[in-house]
């Protein structure tokens, strides 16, 4: 039996891409660490990427183009990271990295649930809440962080599974409403239940929240890494970003295996048409429950990440807005494309946070805006940049849905390729004479009574 992957390696287009990406990374590493001229590196890298883009791009498969886009976005983010490392903006970049990790996890969770299976989950924040609260509570009460994390993601998965079992039979919009509602109920629990308030060594808090949540590997970092010269440019938050990136990587690997497997194909059919999938012998409901659990697992990891980022979690961390942000990153990235979730999160987080760099009351823009607002409403307080951020995010989401619903990195076809059995690529069909003749008059398409 031939293995499915052989041709992937032999495919000349992919070799091309592999060489290009290696060169790009090599340039990056070389210039950053050896020559220490990152600006030059970023320019050269950009040239390399543009070259890849331009070079007879009709020969590239969608997958290759997507890979290049991913590479371009990630390397340039990393380069910017390195360039800004010794400037006042380095803090901004580190925080951005942390939130990119967080939203990548959430978007990935959505990508499994919605991008792959078509479940309209507006309750991402509920899954995040479970992950964050369980991880936070257990570790605050003294459980080792790793086990608290495991319980956190398992808790989120089990919770998602239970919700799915009871409500996934509903119409899409009902499920959306129910899932957003459950998030709000959880937030109320967090607000009211004394048992959900804690800090190390004390369970009697008068205000809601879990405080002083221990962070993973903090002791290890402080005792060991901080003393190693190589890591002198690192601080703990950056280190936490790497831990998060590692979690993302694992999640990505798992989801990728599901995506490009017969299992993923089955889930896609559910997304396309639940009824037909059911009629063709698949127990749709079971798969949807399992997938909700997996999405809970990933969003729960995002929740744990959130707990570690903030160290303190309060009900305000779990507003429905988080769900909306996750959807935005997901839509920008390209529903149905795992790599897209990274790109989508990078773009979303930079979009949302970059305006913070403009948050300077003296800037021309802000002065202009403020005087305009004062003109309309003399009693208005000065405009906070966070409103503008949200307006921009809302607008970008709507624009994407309208003009680019497939997102930055569109979904790629799953094409099992077997040696000696190569078929023409999707989209490049050369119609044979025979079908053309058959279909000449068949353009009416099927307009039968669609009463099913």
């Amino acid at each position, binding site marked *: 039996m031939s293995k499915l992957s052989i041709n992937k390696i032999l495919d000349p287009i992919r070799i091309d891409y592999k060489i290009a990406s290696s060169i790009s990374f090599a340039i990056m590493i070389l210039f950053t660490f050896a020559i220490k001229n990152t600006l030059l590196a970023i320019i050269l890298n950009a040239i390399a990427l543009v070259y890849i883009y331009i070079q007879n791009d009709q020969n590239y498969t969608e997958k290759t183009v997507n890979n290049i886009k991913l590479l371009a976005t990630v390397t340039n983010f990393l380069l910017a990271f390195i360039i800004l490392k010794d400037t006042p903006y380095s803090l901004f970049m580190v925080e951005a990295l942390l939130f990119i990790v967080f939203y990548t996890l959430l978007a990935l969770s959505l990508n499994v649930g*919605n991008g792959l299976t078509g479940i*309209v989950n*507006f309750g991402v924040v509920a899954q995040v809440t479970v992950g964050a609260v369980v991880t936070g509570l257990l570790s605050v009460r003294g459980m080792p962080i790793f086990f608290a994390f495991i319980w956190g993601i398992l808790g989120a998965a089990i919770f998602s599974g239970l919700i799915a*079992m*009871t*409500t996934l*039979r*509903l*119409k*899409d*919009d*009902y499920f*959306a*409403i*129910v899932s*957003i*509602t*459950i998030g*709000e*109920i959880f937030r*109320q629990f967090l*607000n*009211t239940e*004394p048992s959900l308030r804690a800090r190390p060594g004390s369970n009697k808090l008068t205000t809601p929240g879990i405080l002083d949540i221990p962070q993973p590997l903090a002791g290890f970092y402080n005792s060991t890494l901080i003393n190693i010269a190589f890591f002198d440019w690192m601080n703990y938050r950056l280190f936490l970003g790497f831990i998060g990136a590692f979690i993302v990587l694992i999640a990505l690997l798992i989801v990728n295996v599901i995506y490009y497997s017969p299992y993923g194909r089955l889930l896609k059919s559910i997304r396309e048409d639940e009824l037909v999938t059911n009629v063709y012998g698949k*127990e749709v*409901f*079971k798969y949807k*429950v399992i997938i909700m659990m997996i999405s809970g697992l990933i969003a729960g990891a995002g929740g744990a990440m959130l707990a570690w980022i903030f160290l303190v979690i309060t009900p305000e961390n779990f507003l*429905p*807005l988080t769900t*909306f942000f996750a*959807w*935005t990153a997901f*839509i920008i990235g390209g529903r149905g494309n795992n790599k897209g979730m990274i790109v989508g999160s990078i773009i979303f987080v930079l979009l949302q946070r970059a305006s913070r760099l403009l948050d300077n009351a003296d800037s021309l823009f802000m002065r202009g*805006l403020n005087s305009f*607002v004062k003109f*309309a*409403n*003399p*009693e*208005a*307080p000065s*405009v*906070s940049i966070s*409103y*503008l951020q*949200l*307006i921009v*995010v*809302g*607008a970008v*989401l*709507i624009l994407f*849905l*309208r003009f680019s*619903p497939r997102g930055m990195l569109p979904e790629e076809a799953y094409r099992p390729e077997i040696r000696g059995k190569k078929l023409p690529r999707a989209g490049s069909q050369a119609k044979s004479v025979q079908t053309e003749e058959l279909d000449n008059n068949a353009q009416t398409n099927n307009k039968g009574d669609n009463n099913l």
Partner: protein
Amino acid sequence: MDKTETEMPSSISRIIDKYKDFIKTKDASVIFYGLLVFLLVITIIGFRSQNLTFNITLLIFASLYIAAIYLCISLGLSMTYKLLDFANFAHAEYFIIGAYTAIMWNMINDYRDPVFMDIFIVIVLGFIAAGLVAILGDILVFKPLRKLNSSSETLMISSIGWGIIIRNVVSVFFGAGVVYFRWVETKNIRIKSVRVGGADFSTSVVYGLNVEYLIAILVTIFMVIALFYVLAKTKMGKALRATSDNISLAESSGIKTDRMINITWFIGGGLAGVSGVLFGLSSPIFPTSGFIYLLPAFAVVVLGGIGSLKGSVVAAVIIAFSQNLSVSYLSWLEGPLDRSGLIAYQRVLPFVILIIVILIKPQGLYGGDLDE
């Protein structure tokens, strides 16, 4: 035939089906009556402990007030939901458009003292402003997506985005803090009431009824009657109903459906705007106060049955009353359960009702047409 090929029992679906059938059919009533008995027992225990009390008049008026606010928001939500077949998560933002229109009226008339009549001007202005914003939303966001044949899922997501835009544009101009509508000083109307429960079981007390509550209730009743009249008796109302029932059929029978869609948005958004005005009469307003009412509004729409205005009226009253009743129970239960802050859960009650209704009777009380 080969039996080995017939295995694969769909165990989970089977169990769930059984459980759903159980709820849906005869045994649903068992659960319902079980719940009633449970409530009764709790109530008796509460009365015997002398700590569970209800102020009857307060209960009635406070509930009607909440019902009025819920109802004004949900009527439009229900109409657009039925007509365009998607849940508009931005609908509650039209509420704050109304509320802030009232604030703007305050600002424009800064130079003089408010007069009683202001309220009616503000109601009309709030209706128009919110209605126009609703139409704007359709033009900017929903109509282009409908043209692309987007799924209801896409429309729902974009409606969240649109809601966030509205909320934050309002924040830009008014800040995120609370603002108050300035209006004439009103005195509470003192009426007799009975307090049930406590040591004497029934005590007559005096209850000060907020004039603003009364106005909100009366205005809502007026608007609901007007809406029902328009829908039932006028030519436009009939066209609206026909469009809502079946857009393509209405289109083919010569109704200008695009116009009907705009009118529906205008009326629906406008009603939400009025509820914002009415709410602002007695409560502080802030940009997220609309979102707070979104999920209760969904609860009303779903319990009433999507598209059924009569259902919405009934559902708003049911939800408002149960929410207010729950306040009494929760504040009593804080004692025996040795807990404080239980009362906050009254906010959750509509959510719980929403979920239960969706699970047990997704078509709602009056699942059906606009003309019911």
